[in-house]
Protein backbone atom coordinates (compact mmCIF):
# COMPACT_ATOMS: atom_id res chain seq x y z
CA UNK A 1 0.00 0.00 0.00
CA UNK A 2 1.10 3.53 -0.69
CA UNK A 3 2.12 5.77 2.17
CA UNK A 4 1.41 8.96 0.26
CA UNK A 5 -0.99 11.36 1.97
CA UNK A 6 -2.94 13.61 -0.36
CA UNK A 7 -5.32 16.25 1.03
CA UNK A 8 -9.00 15.56 0.47
CA UNK A 9 -9.41 18.98 -1.13
CA UNK A 10 -6.52 19.16 -3.55
CA UNK A 11 -5.82 22.68 -4.82
CA UNK A 12 -5.97 23.31 -8.54
CA UNK A 13 -2.68 22.68 -10.34
CA UNK A 14 -2.65 26.38 -11.24
CA UNK A 15 -2.65 27.29 -7.55
CA UNK A 16 0.01 24.72 -6.75
CA UNK A 17 2.15 26.03 -9.58
CA UNK A 18 1.75 29.57 -8.33
CA UNK A 19 2.70 28.62 -4.79
CA UNK A 20 5.75 26.76 -6.03
CA UNK A 21 6.79 29.71 -8.10
CA UNK A 22 6.46 31.90 -5.01
CA UNK A 23 8.57 29.40 -3.09
CA UNK A 24 11.42 30.00 -5.55
CA UNK A 25 11.23 33.76 -5.72
CA UNK A 26 13.16 36.27 -3.74
CA UNK A 27 16.11 35.45 -1.54
CA UNK A 28 16.35 31.87 -0.48
CA UNK A 29 13.83 29.18 -1.13
CA UNK A 30 10.78 28.21 0.85
CA UNK A 31 11.57 24.51 1.15
CA UNK A 32 8.76 23.87 3.61
CA UNK A 33 6.25 25.15 1.07
CA UNK A 34 7.71 22.96 -1.64
CA UNK A 35 7.46 19.91 0.58
CA UNK A 36 3.95 20.76 1.72
CA UNK A 37 2.81 20.75 -1.89
CA UNK A 38 4.84 18.22 -3.83
CA UNK A 39 5.11 15.59 -1.09
CA UNK A 40 1.34 15.46 -0.97
CA UNK A 41 0.47 15.01 -4.62
CA UNK A 42 0.26 11.78 -6.57
CA UNK A 43 1.90 11.14 -9.94
CA UNK A 44 -1.04 12.36 -12.03
CA UNK A 45 -1.33 15.53 -9.97
CA UNK A 46 2.41 16.23 -10.10
CA UNK A 47 2.34 15.77 -13.86
CA UNK A 48 -0.44 18.34 -14.17
CA UNK A 49 1.42 20.78 -11.97
CA UNK A 50 4.48 20.40 -14.19
CA UNK A 51 2.50 21.11 -17.36
CA UNK A 52 0.78 24.12 -15.87
CA UNK A 53 4.02 25.43 -14.42
CA UNK A 54 5.76 25.15 -17.79
CA UNK A 55 2.85 26.80 -19.60
CA UNK A 56 2.62 29.64 -17.08
CA UNK A 57 6.25 30.38 -16.31
CA UNK A 58 7.93 29.10 -19.46
CA UNK A 59 10.25 26.89 -17.47
CA UNK A 60 10.35 23.23 -16.57
CA UNK A 61 9.54 22.87 -12.88
CA UNK A 62 12.40 20.40 -12.59
CA UNK A 63 14.81 22.97 -13.92
CA UNK A 64 13.66 25.45 -11.31
CA UNK A 65 14.04 22.83 -8.57
CA UNK A 66 17.51 22.03 -9.84
CA UNK A 67 18.52 25.67 -9.61
CA UNK A 68 16.98 26.38 -6.24
CA UNK A 69 17.69 23.22 -4.28
CA UNK A 70 20.79 21.24 -3.52
CA UNK A 71 22.28 17.95 -2.44
CA UNK A 72 20.17 15.14 -0.94
CA UNK A 73 17.05 17.27 -0.60
CA UNK A 74 17.22 18.28 -4.24
CA UNK A 75 17.72 14.72 -5.36
CA UNK A 76 14.74 13.55 -3.34
CA UNK A 77 12.44 16.28 -4.64
CA UNK A 78 13.65 15.88 -8.21
CA UNK A 79 13.24 12.12 -8.26
CA UNK A 80 9.86 12.38 -6.56
CA UNK A 81 8.52 14.97 -8.97
CA UNK A 82 9.41 12.97 -12.07
CA UNK A 83 6.80 10.75 -13.64
CA UNK A 84 7.49 7.17 -12.46
CA UNK A 85 8.58 5.84 -15.89
CA UNK A 86 10.85 8.88 -16.40
CA UNK A 87 12.22 8.44 -12.92
CA UNK A 88 13.08 4.82 -13.56
CA UNK A 89 14.65 5.71 -16.90
CA UNK A 90 16.78 8.36 -15.18
CA UNK A 91 17.83 5.96 -12.42
CA UNK A 92 18.59 3.23 -14.94
CA UNK A 93 20.77 5.56 -17.00
CA UNK A 94 22.60 6.71 -13.92
CA UNK A 95 23.22 3.15 -12.88
CA UNK A 96 24.98 2.26 -16.13
CA UNK A 97 27.42 5.13 -15.95
CA UNK A 98 30.87 4.52 -14.64
CA UNK A 99 30.93 6.67 -11.52
CA UNK A 100 27.41 5.97 -10.44
CA UNK A 101 27.40 2.30 -11.31
CA UNK A 102 24.78 0.43 -9.39
CA UNK A 103 23.38 -2.82 -10.68
CA UNK A 104 20.88 -3.09 -7.83
CA UNK A 105 18.89 -0.30 -9.42
CA UNK A 106 18.50 -2.25 -12.64
CA UNK A 107 17.43 -5.32 -10.71
CA UNK A 108 14.84 -3.30 -8.80
CA UNK A 109 13.44 -1.73 -11.92
CA UNK A 110 13.37 -4.94 -13.92
CA UNK A 111 11.98 -7.12 -11.15
CA UNK A 112 9.61 -5.03 -9.06
CA UNK A 113 7.82 -2.93 -11.67
CA UNK A 114 4.78 -4.49 -13.38
CA UNK A 115 5.47 -5.65 -16.95
CA UNK A 116 3.51 -2.87 -18.63
CA UNK A 117 5.16 -0.29 -16.40
CA UNK A 118 8.55 -1.61 -17.46
CA UNK A 119 7.57 -1.04 -21.10
CA UNK A 120 6.77 2.60 -20.25
CA UNK A 121 10.19 2.88 -18.62
CA UNK A 122 11.78 1.63 -21.83
CA UNK A 123 9.81 4.12 -23.89
CA UNK A 124 10.79 6.96 -21.54
CA UNK A 125 14.41 5.82 -21.76
CA UNK A 126 14.37 5.81 -25.55
CA UNK A 127 12.69 9.20 -25.71
CA UNK A 128 15.19 10.80 -23.36
CA UNK A 129 18.45 9.08 -24.25
CA UNK A 130 17.87 8.14 -27.91
CA UNK A 131 18.88 4.55 -27.30
CA UNK A 132 17.26 1.55 -25.76
CA UNK A 133 17.88 0.53 -22.18
CA UNK A 134 18.76 -2.95 -23.41
CA UNK A 135 21.59 -1.78 -25.61
CA UNK A 136 23.02 0.33 -22.80
CA UNK A 137 22.80 -2.44 -20.24
CA UNK A 138 24.29 -4.89 -22.75
CA UNK A 139 27.10 -2.56 -23.62
CA UNK A 140 28.01 -1.66 -20.06
CA UNK A 141 28.03 -5.11 -18.58
CA UNK A 142 29.86 -8.26 -19.46
CA UNK A 143 30.28 -11.87 -18.49
CA UNK A 144 27.95 -13.30 -15.89
CA UNK A 145 26.51 -9.93 -14.92
CA UNK A 146 25.37 -9.33 -18.47
CA UNK A 147 24.05 -12.87 -18.73
CA UNK A 148 21.81 -12.09 -15.80
CA UNK A 149 20.96 -8.41 -16.30
CA UNK A 150 20.23 -8.29 -20.03
CA UNK A 151 17.41 -10.85 -20.10
CA UNK A 152 16.15 -9.33 -16.87
CA UNK A 153 15.57 -5.92 -18.46
CA UNK A 154 14.41 -7.40 -21.78
CA UNK A 155 11.81 -9.77 -20.56
CA UNK A 156 8.08 -9.07 -20.75
CA UNK A 157 6.78 -11.43 -18.13
CA UNK A 158 3.39 -13.02 -18.20
CA UNK A 159 1.50 -11.54 -15.26
CA UNK A 160 -1.31 -14.03 -14.80
CA UNK A 161 -1.80 -16.25 -11.77
CA UNK A 162 -1.68 -19.47 -13.80
CA UNK A 163 0.75 -21.90 -12.31
CA UNK A 164 1.86 -25.24 -13.68
CA UNK A 165 2.73 -27.37 -10.65
CA UNK A 166 4.49 -30.05 -12.65
CA UNK A 167 6.67 -27.42 -14.21
CA UNK A 168 7.30 -25.91 -10.76
CA UNK A 169 8.56 -29.28 -9.57
CA UNK A 170 10.78 -29.94 -12.57
CA UNK A 171 12.24 -26.46 -12.55
CA UNK A 172 12.81 -26.53 -8.80
CA UNK A 173 14.83 -29.66 -9.46
CA UNK A 174 16.89 -27.92 -12.13
CA UNK A 175 17.55 -24.98 -9.82
CA UNK A 176 18.61 -27.27 -7.04
CA UNK A 177 20.95 -29.21 -9.33
CA UNK A 178 22.62 -26.04 -10.49
CA UNK A 179 22.97 -24.72 -6.97
CA UNK A 180 24.51 -28.00 -5.84
CA UNK A 181 26.94 -27.89 -8.76
CA UNK A 182 27.70 -24.25 -8.00
CA UNK A 183 26.68 -23.39 -11.59
CA UNK A 184 25.19 -20.09 -10.60
CA UNK A 185 25.29 -18.62 -14.08
CA UNK A 186 24.14 -21.72 -15.90
CA UNK A 187 21.92 -21.04 -18.93
CA UNK A 188 18.93 -22.95 -17.59
CA UNK A 189 19.30 -21.43 -14.13
CA UNK A 190 19.17 -17.95 -15.58
CA UNK A 191 16.46 -18.87 -18.06
CA UNK A 192 14.09 -19.86 -15.28
CA UNK A 193 14.74 -16.75 -13.22
CA UNK A 194 14.56 -14.32 -16.10
CA UNK A 195 11.62 -15.61 -18.15
CA UNK A 196 9.09 -17.32 -15.89
CA UNK A 197 6.15 -15.38 -14.53
CA UNK A 198 6.30 -14.27 -10.89
CA UNK A 199 3.47 -16.62 -9.97
CA UNK A 200 5.23 -19.56 -11.60
CA UNK A 201 8.53 -18.62 -10.01
CA UNK A 202 6.87 -18.32 -6.62
CA UNK A 203 5.49 -21.82 -6.97
CA UNK A 204 8.84 -23.15 -8.13
CA UNK A 205 10.74 -21.59 -5.24
CA UNK A 206 8.16 -22.75 -2.72
CA UNK A 207 8.58 -26.23 -4.05
CA UNK A 208 12.34 -25.83 -3.82
CA UNK A 209 12.00 -24.94 -0.17
CA UNK A 210 9.57 -27.79 0.57
CA UNK A 211 11.54 -30.39 -1.31
CA UNK A 212 15.11 -29.48 -0.40
CA UNK A 213 14.65 -28.05 3.07
CA UNK A 214 15.97 -24.56 2.51
CA UNK A 215 14.93 -21.43 0.69
CA UNK A 216 17.12 -21.01 -2.37
CA UNK A 217 18.65 -17.79 -1.07
CA UNK A 218 19.79 -19.55 2.05
CA UNK A 219 21.66 -22.04 -0.12
CA UNK A 220 23.07 -19.25 -2.25
CA UNK A 221 24.28 -17.43 0.83
CA UNK A 222 26.32 -20.47 1.80
CA UNK A 223 28.55 -19.90 -1.21
CA UNK A 224 31.88 -18.78 0.19
CA UNK A 225 32.77 -16.58 -2.76
CA UNK A 226 30.13 -13.96 -2.09
CA UNK A 227 30.95 -11.75 -5.03
CA UNK A 228 28.87 -9.04 -6.74
CA UNK A 229 27.19 -11.55 -8.99
CA UNK A 230 26.00 -13.69 -6.08
CA UNK A 231 24.69 -10.65 -4.21
CA UNK A 232 22.83 -9.54 -7.32
CA UNK A 233 21.45 -13.01 -7.90
CA UNK A 234 20.01 -13.13 -4.40
CA UNK A 235 18.60 -9.62 -4.90
CA UNK A 236 16.89 -10.77 -8.09
CA UNK A 237 15.22 -13.63 -6.30
CA UNK A 238 14.14 -11.44 -3.38
CA UNK A 239 12.80 -8.71 -5.68
CA UNK A 240 10.79 -11.21 -7.67
CA UNK A 241 9.25 -12.85 -4.62
CA UNK A 242 9.34 -10.49 -1.62
CA UNK A 243 10.22 -7.02 -2.84
CA UNK A 244 9.50 -5.39 0.51
CA UNK A 245 12.31 -7.49 2.03
CA UNK A 246 14.73 -6.21 -0.56
CA UNK A 247 13.72 -2.60 -0.05
CA UNK A 248 13.95 -2.98 3.73
CA UNK A 249 17.49 -4.20 3.32
CA UNK A 250 18.46 -1.34 1.05
CA UNK A 251 17.00 1.12 3.55
CA UNK A 252 18.72 -0.53 6.50
CA UNK A 253 22.14 -0.54 4.83
CA UNK A 254 21.77 3.01 3.62
CA UNK A 255 20.59 4.37 6.95
CA UNK A 256 23.35 2.55 8.80
CA UNK A 257 25.87 3.80 6.25
CA UNK A 258 26.83 0.26 5.36
CA UNK A 259 27.59 -0.92 1.87
CA UNK A 260 28.02 1.33 -1.15
CA UNK A 261 24.44 2.24 -2.01
CA UNK A 262 24.41 5.68 -0.38
CA UNK A 263 21.53 6.93 -2.43
CA UNK A 264 19.47 3.89 -1.50
CA UNK A 265 17.38 5.75 1.05
CA UNK A 266 16.32 8.46 -1.39
CA UNK A 267 15.69 5.96 -4.13
CA UNK A 268 13.55 3.56 -2.13
CA UNK A 269 11.42 6.28 -0.56
CA UNK A 270 10.78 8.14 -3.81
CA UNK A 271 10.12 5.02 -5.86
CA UNK A 272 8.00 3.07 -3.38
CA UNK A 273 5.91 5.77 -1.64
CA UNK A 274 3.16 5.36 -4.19
CA UNK A 275 3.49 1.59 -4.43
CA UNK A 276 4.10 -0.49 -1.31
CA UNK A 277 5.73 1.78 1.26
CA UNK A 278 3.34 0.68 4.00
CA UNK A 279 4.45 -2.95 3.51
CA UNK A 280 8.07 -1.83 3.57
CA UNK A 281 7.50 0.14 6.78
CA UNK A 282 6.02 -2.95 8.42
CA UNK A 283 8.95 -5.03 7.25
CA UNK A 284 11.40 -2.43 8.52
CA UNK A 285 9.80 -2.29 11.94
CA UNK A 286 9.74 -6.08 12.13
CA UNK A 287 13.40 -6.38 11.21
CA UNK A 288 14.85 -3.42 13.08
CA UNK A 289 12.48 -2.96 16.03
CA UNK A 290 12.20 0.73 15.30
CA UNK A 291 9.74 2.48 12.97
CA UNK A 292 11.23 3.59 9.68
CA UNK A 293 10.36 7.23 10.09
CA UNK A 294 12.16 7.33 13.41
CA UNK A 295 15.24 5.65 11.93
CA UNK A 296 15.22 8.20 9.12
CA UNK A 297 14.79 11.08 11.57
CA UNK A 298 17.83 9.89 13.49
CA UNK A 299 19.94 9.51 10.38
CA UNK A 300 18.96 12.59 8.40
CA UNK A 301 18.19 16.19 9.10
CA UNK A 302 16.72 19.41 7.76
CA UNK A 303 14.69 19.62 4.61
CA UNK A 304 15.87 16.24 3.39
CA UNK A 305 14.50 14.61 6.53
CA UNK A 306 11.25 16.57 6.28
CA UNK A 307 10.76 15.48 2.66
CA UNK A 308 11.33 11.81 3.36
CA UNK A 309 9.16 11.81 6.45
CA UNK A 310 6.37 13.57 4.56
CA UNK A 311 6.51 10.96 1.79
CA UNK A 312 6.33 8.25 4.41
CA UNK A 313 2.98 9.64 5.39
CA UNK A 314 3.93 11.44 8.56
CA UNK A 315 3.64 15.17 9.04
CA UNK A 316 0.60 17.09 7.87
CA UNK A 317 -1.12 16.62 4.56
Amino acid at each position, binding site marked *: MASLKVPSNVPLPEDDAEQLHKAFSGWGTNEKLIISILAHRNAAQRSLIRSVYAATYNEDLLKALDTELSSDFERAVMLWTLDPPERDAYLAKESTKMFTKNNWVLVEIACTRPALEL*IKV*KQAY*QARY*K*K*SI*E*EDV*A*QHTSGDL*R*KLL*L*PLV*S*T*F*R*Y*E*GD*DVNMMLARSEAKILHEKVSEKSYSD*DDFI*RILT*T*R*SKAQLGATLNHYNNEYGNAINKNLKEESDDNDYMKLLRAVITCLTYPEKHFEKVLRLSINKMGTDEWGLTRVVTTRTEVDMERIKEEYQRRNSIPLDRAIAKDTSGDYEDMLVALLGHGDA
Partner: protein
Amino acid sequence: MALPLEFESLTEAISGMGVDENALISTLGKSQKEHRKLFRKASKSFFVEDEERAFEKCHDHFVRHLKLEFSRFNNAVVMWAMHPWERDARLVKKALKKGEEAYNLIVEVSCTRSAEDLLGARKAYHSLFDQSMEEDIASHVHGPHRKLLVGLVSAYRYEGNKVKDDSAKSEAKILAEAVASSGEEVVEKDEVVRILTTRSKLHLQHLYKHFNEIKGSDLLGGVSQSSLLNEALLCLLKPALYFSKILDASLNKDADKTTKKWLTRVFVTRADHSDEMNEIKEEYNNLFGETLAQRIQEKIKGNYRDFLLTLLSKSD
Protein backbone atom coordinates in the same frame (compact mmCIF):
# COMPACT_ATOMS: atom_id res chain seq x y z
CA MET B 1 -20.11 -31.42 -74.50
CA ALA B 2 -16.73 -32.19 -75.99
CA LEU B 3 -15.22 -34.04 -73.06
CA PRO B 4 -11.44 -34.00 -73.76
CA LEU B 5 -11.38 -30.20 -73.77
CA GLU B 6 -13.28 -29.99 -70.53
CA PHE B 7 -11.13 -32.71 -69.06
CA GLU B 8 -8.11 -30.54 -69.71
CA SER B 9 -9.60 -27.44 -68.23
CA LEU B 10 -10.90 -29.41 -65.29
CA THR B 11 -7.48 -30.85 -64.56
CA GLU B 12 -6.06 -27.39 -64.97
CA ALA B 13 -8.57 -25.98 -62.50
CA ILE B 14 -7.35 -28.22 -59.72
CA SER B 15 -3.64 -28.23 -60.44
CA GLY B 16 -1.06 -25.83 -59.09
CA MET B 17 -1.76 -23.31 -56.36
CA GLY B 18 -5.28 -22.28 -55.49
CA VAL B 19 -8.36 -23.68 -57.20
CA ASP B 20 -10.34 -22.24 -60.07
CA GLU B 21 -13.69 -22.28 -58.32
CA ASN B 22 -15.60 -20.84 -61.28
CA ALA B 23 -14.25 -23.39 -63.73
CA LEU B 24 -15.13 -26.17 -61.34
CA ILE B 25 -18.66 -24.93 -61.03
CA SER B 26 -19.15 -24.67 -64.75
CA THR B 27 -17.49 -27.95 -65.68
CA LEU B 28 -17.70 -30.38 -62.79
CA GLY B 29 -20.82 -28.85 -61.41
CA LYS B 30 -22.65 -29.07 -64.66
CA SER B 31 -21.37 -32.49 -65.60
CA GLN B 32 -23.34 -35.69 -65.89
CA LYS B 33 -22.53 -38.81 -63.92
CA GLU B 34 -21.13 -40.60 -67.01
CA HIS B 35 -18.79 -37.72 -67.82
CA ARG B 36 -17.37 -37.73 -64.36
CA LYS B 37 -16.78 -41.47 -64.68
CA LEU B 38 -14.88 -40.89 -67.88
CA PHE B 39 -12.92 -38.16 -66.18
CA ARG B 40 -11.97 -40.43 -63.32
CA LYS B 41 -10.91 -43.20 -65.70
CA ALA B 42 -8.80 -40.79 -67.70
CA SER B 43 -7.09 -39.06 -64.77
CA LYS B 44 -4.56 -41.65 -63.75
CA SER B 45 -2.76 -39.16 -61.51
CA PHE B 46 -5.85 -38.48 -59.42
CA PHE B 47 -7.66 -41.78 -59.49
CA VAL B 48 -6.71 -45.42 -59.49
CA GLU B 49 -8.85 -48.08 -61.10
CA ASP B 50 -9.97 -50.84 -58.74
CA GLU B 51 -10.65 -53.38 -61.48
CA GLU B 52 -11.75 -56.17 -59.18
CA ARG B 53 -14.49 -54.09 -57.66
CA ALA B 54 -15.16 -52.00 -60.79
CA PHE B 55 -14.79 -48.46 -59.49
CA GLU B 56 -12.23 -45.66 -59.65
CA LYS B 57 -11.01 -44.56 -56.24
CA CYS B 58 -9.18 -41.37 -55.30
CA HIS B 59 -5.51 -41.32 -54.74
CA ASP B 60 -4.85 -40.18 -51.18
CA HIS B 61 -2.70 -37.39 -52.42
CA PHE B 62 -5.50 -36.17 -54.68
CA VAL B 63 -7.80 -35.71 -51.72
CA ARG B 64 -5.03 -34.12 -49.71
CA HIS B 65 -4.04 -31.87 -52.55
CA LEU B 66 -7.57 -30.63 -53.07
CA LYS B 67 -8.08 -30.08 -49.39
CA LEU B 68 -4.90 -28.07 -49.22
CA GLU B 69 -5.53 -26.03 -52.32
CA PHE B 70 -9.13 -25.26 -51.39
CA SER B 71 -8.01 -24.13 -47.96
CA ARG B 72 -5.48 -21.59 -49.18
CA PHE B 73 -8.08 -18.90 -49.66
CA ASN B 74 -9.74 -19.87 -46.37
CA ASN B 75 -6.50 -19.63 -44.42
CA ALA B 76 -5.57 -16.36 -46.06
CA VAL B 77 -8.88 -14.81 -45.12
CA VAL B 78 -8.80 -16.01 -41.53
CA MET B 79 -5.25 -14.79 -41.16
CA TRP B 80 -6.12 -11.47 -42.74
CA ALA B 81 -9.08 -10.89 -40.44
CA MET B 82 -7.01 -11.61 -37.36
CA HIS B 83 -5.33 -8.87 -35.42
CA PRO B 84 -1.69 -8.62 -36.58
CA TRP B 85 -0.53 -9.26 -33.04
CA GLU B 86 -2.50 -12.50 -32.79
CA ARG B 87 -1.28 -13.49 -36.22
CA ASP B 88 2.35 -13.14 -35.22
CA ALA B 89 1.86 -14.75 -31.81
CA ARG B 90 0.28 -17.79 -33.47
CA LEU B 91 3.03 -17.96 -36.08
CA VAL B 92 5.68 -18.07 -33.38
CA LYS B 93 3.78 -20.68 -31.37
CA LYS B 94 3.34 -22.87 -34.42
CA ALA B 95 7.00 -22.54 -35.32
CA LEU B 96 8.02 -23.53 -31.80
CA LYS B 97 5.83 -26.59 -31.92
CA LYS B 98 7.08 -27.62 -35.33
CA GLY B 99 10.68 -27.53 -34.21
CA GLU B 100 14.03 -26.50 -35.54
CA GLU B 101 13.15 -26.49 -39.22
CA ALA B 102 10.55 -23.79 -38.58
CA TYR B 103 12.64 -21.47 -36.41
CA ASN B 104 13.17 -19.20 -39.40
CA LEU B 105 9.61 -17.99 -38.78
CA ILE B 106 10.59 -16.80 -35.33
CA VAL B 107 13.50 -14.92 -36.84
CA GLU B 108 11.24 -13.39 -39.47
CA VAL B 109 8.62 -12.17 -37.01
CA SER B 110 11.08 -10.80 -34.50
CA CYS B 111 13.31 -9.06 -37.03
CA THR B 112 10.94 -7.60 -39.61
CA ARG B 113 8.22 -6.20 -37.35
CA SER B 114 8.42 -2.76 -35.78
CA ALA B 115 9.23 -2.54 -32.06
CA GLU B 116 5.60 -1.83 -31.20
CA ASP B 117 4.32 -4.66 -33.39
CA LEU B 118 6.71 -7.16 -31.85
CA LEU B 119 5.74 -5.97 -28.38
CA GLY B 120 2.10 -6.35 -29.42
CA ALA B 121 2.75 -9.92 -30.54
CA ARG B 122 4.28 -10.60 -27.13
CA LYS B 123 1.22 -9.17 -25.43
CA ALA B 124 -1.03 -11.32 -27.60
CA TYR B 125 1.11 -14.31 -26.69
CA HIS B 126 0.36 -13.71 -23.00
CA SER B 127 -3.31 -13.54 -23.77
CA LEU B 128 -3.46 -16.57 -26.03
CA PHE B 129 -1.06 -18.95 -24.34
CA ASP B 130 -0.78 -17.82 -20.68
CA GLN B 131 2.95 -17.58 -21.00
CA SER B 132 5.43 -15.11 -22.30
CA MET B 133 6.91 -15.69 -25.73
CA GLU B 134 10.42 -15.62 -24.34
CA GLU B 135 9.78 -18.23 -21.64
CA ASP B 136 8.21 -20.57 -24.16
CA ILE B 137 11.08 -20.21 -26.59
CA ALA B 138 13.70 -20.38 -23.83
CA SER B 139 12.31 -23.61 -22.47
CA HIS B 140 11.74 -25.32 -25.83
CA VAL B 141 14.79 -24.34 -27.81
CA HIS B 142 17.98 -26.09 -26.92
CA GLY B 143 21.26 -25.86 -28.61
CA PRO B 144 23.22 -23.02 -30.13
CA HIS B 145 20.28 -20.93 -31.28
CA ARG B 146 18.57 -20.37 -27.99
CA LYS B 147 20.43 -17.22 -27.04
CA LEU B 148 19.84 -15.65 -30.43
CA LEU B 149 16.14 -16.51 -30.65
CA VAL B 150 15.29 -15.46 -27.09
CA GLY B 151 17.24 -12.26 -27.57
CA LEU B 152 15.56 -11.47 -30.87
CA VAL B 153 12.01 -11.85 -29.55
CA SER B 154 12.85 -9.93 -26.37
CA ALA B 155 14.07 -6.91 -28.28
CA TYR B 156 12.38 -3.53 -27.96
CA ARG B 157 14.62 -1.55 -30.25
CA TYR B 158 15.14 2.18 -30.38
CA GLU B 159 13.57 3.44 -33.60
CA GLY B 160 14.67 7.04 -33.67
CA ASN B 161 17.20 8.58 -36.01
CA LYS B 162 20.10 9.09 -33.61
CA VAL B 163 23.08 6.85 -34.14
CA LYS B 164 26.68 6.81 -32.93
CA ASP B 165 28.72 5.96 -35.97
CA ASP B 166 31.98 5.25 -34.06
CA SER B 167 30.09 2.80 -31.93
CA ALA B 168 28.78 1.12 -35.08
CA LYS B 169 32.29 1.04 -36.48
CA SER B 170 33.83 -0.56 -33.41
CA GLU B 171 31.05 -3.10 -33.31
CA ALA B 172 31.61 -3.87 -36.97
CA LYS B 173 35.18 -4.72 -35.98
CA ILE B 174 33.93 -6.94 -33.19
CA LEU B 175 31.64 -8.72 -35.62
CA ALA B 176 34.43 -9.08 -38.17
CA GLU B 177 36.69 -10.64 -35.57
CA ALA B 178 33.95 -12.96 -34.38
CA VAL B 179 33.31 -14.14 -37.92
CA ALA B 180 36.99 -14.72 -38.60
CA SER B 181 37.88 -16.56 -35.44
CA SER B 182 37.36 -20.25 -35.01
CA GLY B 183 36.17 -22.02 -31.91
CA GLU B 184 32.67 -21.21 -30.78
CA GLU B 185 30.15 -21.01 -33.61
CA VAL B 186 29.47 -17.39 -34.48
CA VAL B 187 25.83 -17.61 -33.48
CA GLU B 188 26.81 -18.52 -29.92
CA LYS B 189 29.23 -15.66 -29.39
CA ASP B 190 27.94 -13.31 -26.72
CA GLU B 191 29.06 -10.15 -28.44
CA VAL B 192 27.41 -11.16 -31.71
CA VAL B 193 24.14 -11.92 -29.97
CA ARG B 194 24.35 -8.71 -27.94
CA ILE B 195 24.82 -6.56 -31.01
CA LEU B 196 22.15 -8.23 -33.09
CA THR B 197 19.54 -8.40 -30.36
CA THR B 198 19.85 -4.96 -28.78
CA ARG B 199 21.06 -2.44 -31.36
CA SER B 200 18.65 -0.31 -33.36
CA LYS B 201 18.16 -1.16 -37.03
CA LEU B 202 19.69 2.16 -38.00
CA HIS B 203 22.77 1.37 -35.94
CA LEU B 204 22.97 -2.01 -37.67
CA GLN B 205 22.80 -0.35 -41.10
CA HIS B 206 25.82 1.75 -40.18
CA LEU B 207 27.55 -1.32 -38.82
CA TYR B 208 26.82 -3.15 -42.07
CA LYS B 209 28.52 -0.45 -44.11
CA HIS B 210 31.62 -0.50 -41.90
CA PHE B 211 31.78 -4.29 -41.83
CA ASN B 212 31.84 -4.51 -45.59
CA GLU B 213 34.60 -1.93 -45.76
CA ILE B 214 36.69 -3.63 -43.09
CA LYS B 215 36.27 -7.14 -44.39
CA GLY B 216 36.05 -6.36 -48.05
CA SER B 217 33.18 -8.80 -48.24
CA ASP B 218 29.43 -8.66 -47.75
CA LEU B 219 28.08 -9.30 -44.27
CA LEU B 220 24.99 -10.61 -45.98
CA GLY B 221 26.96 -13.07 -48.05
CA GLY B 222 26.62 -15.69 -45.35
CA VAL B 223 28.96 -15.26 -42.42
CA SER B 224 27.93 -18.21 -40.41
CA GLN B 225 27.10 -21.84 -40.72
CA SER B 226 23.95 -20.92 -38.90
CA SER B 227 21.30 -20.16 -41.46
CA LEU B 228 19.24 -18.57 -38.70
CA LEU B 229 21.97 -16.04 -38.04
CA ASN B 230 22.32 -15.26 -41.73
CA GLU B 231 18.59 -14.90 -42.00
CA ALA B 232 18.43 -12.61 -38.99
CA LEU B 233 21.01 -10.34 -40.60
CA LEU B 234 19.07 -10.27 -43.86
CA CYS B 235 15.76 -9.57 -42.11
CA LEU B 236 17.23 -6.79 -40.03
CA LEU B 237 19.18 -5.11 -42.82
CA LYS B 238 17.31 -5.84 -46.03
CA PRO B 239 13.81 -7.07 -45.29
CA ALA B 240 12.53 -6.35 -48.82
CA LEU B 241 15.22 -8.59 -50.25
CA TYR B 242 14.45 -11.28 -47.70
CA PHE B 243 10.75 -11.23 -48.52
CA SER B 244 11.35 -11.21 -52.27
CA LYS B 245 13.52 -14.27 -51.95
CA ILE B 246 11.06 -16.26 -49.93
CA LEU B 247 8.18 -15.21 -52.17
CA ASP B 248 10.12 -16.49 -55.12
CA ALA B 249 10.83 -19.74 -53.33
CA SER B 250 7.15 -20.19 -52.55
CA LEU B 251 6.17 -19.61 -56.17
CA ASN B 252 8.75 -22.01 -57.51
CA LYS B 253 7.29 -25.06 -59.16
CA ASP B 254 9.44 -27.32 -56.98
CA ALA B 255 8.35 -25.71 -53.76
CA ASP B 256 7.29 -28.14 -51.06
CA LYS B 257 4.12 -27.97 -49.03
CA THR B 258 5.61 -25.82 -46.28
CA THR B 259 7.36 -23.41 -48.58
CA LYS B 260 4.18 -22.78 -50.56
CA LYS B 261 2.53 -21.54 -47.38
CA TRP B 262 5.04 -18.72 -47.19
CA LEU B 263 3.14 -16.96 -49.95
CA THR B 264 0.04 -16.40 -47.85
CA ARG B 265 2.06 -15.46 -44.80
CA VAL B 266 4.13 -12.78 -46.51
CA PHE B 267 1.20 -11.24 -48.32
CA VAL B 268 -1.14 -11.20 -45.35
CA THR B 269 1.42 -9.95 -42.83
CA ARG B 270 2.93 -7.27 -45.05
CA ALA B 271 -0.03 -5.99 -47.07
CA ASP B 272 -1.00 -3.38 -44.47
CA HIS B 273 2.45 -1.83 -44.68
CA SER B 274 2.29 -0.04 -48.01
CA ASP B 275 5.82 1.32 -47.94
CA GLU B 276 7.30 -2.08 -47.22
CA MET B 277 5.09 -3.76 -49.76
CA ASN B 278 6.21 -1.35 -52.44
CA GLU B 279 9.85 -2.01 -51.58
CA ILE B 280 9.19 -5.73 -51.82
CA LYS B 281 7.51 -5.32 -55.20
CA GLU B 282 10.40 -3.27 -56.49
CA GLU B 283 13.02 -5.66 -55.17
CA TYR B 284 11.18 -8.63 -56.61
CA ASN B 285 10.97 -7.00 -60.00
CA ASN B 286 14.69 -6.16 -59.94
CA LEU B 287 15.66 -9.66 -58.95
CA PHE B 288 13.39 -11.71 -61.13
CA GLY B 289 12.50 -9.58 -64.08
CA GLU B 290 8.75 -9.73 -63.73
CA THR B 291 6.29 -8.14 -61.36
CA LEU B 292 4.77 -9.98 -58.44
CA ALA B 293 1.36 -9.30 -59.90
CA GLN B 294 2.32 -10.98 -63.14
CA ARG B 295 3.72 -13.99 -61.38
CA ILE B 296 0.63 -14.35 -59.22
CA GLN B 297 -1.56 -14.03 -62.28
CA GLU B 298 0.33 -16.79 -64.04
CA LYS B 299 0.74 -19.23 -61.24
CA ILE B 300 -2.25 -18.95 -58.98
CA LYS B 301 -5.92 -19.64 -59.53
CA GLY B 302 -9.36 -18.70 -58.35
CA ASN B 303 -10.37 -16.84 -55.24
CA TYR B 304 -6.94 -17.29 -53.71
CA ARG B 305 -5.35 -15.51 -56.64
CA ASP B 306 -7.90 -12.70 -56.58
CA PHE B 307 -7.41 -12.27 -52.85
CA LEU B 308 -3.64 -12.04 -53.20
CA LEU B 309 -3.92 -9.57 -56.06
CA THR B 310 -6.30 -7.45 -54.01
CA LEU B 311 -3.86 -7.40 -51.10
CA LEU B 312 -1.08 -6.49 -53.49
CA SER B 313 -3.01 -3.61 -55.00
CA LYS B 314 -3.56 -1.99 -51.59
CA SER B 315 -0.13 -0.47 -51.88
CA ASP B 316 -0.53 0.78 -55.45
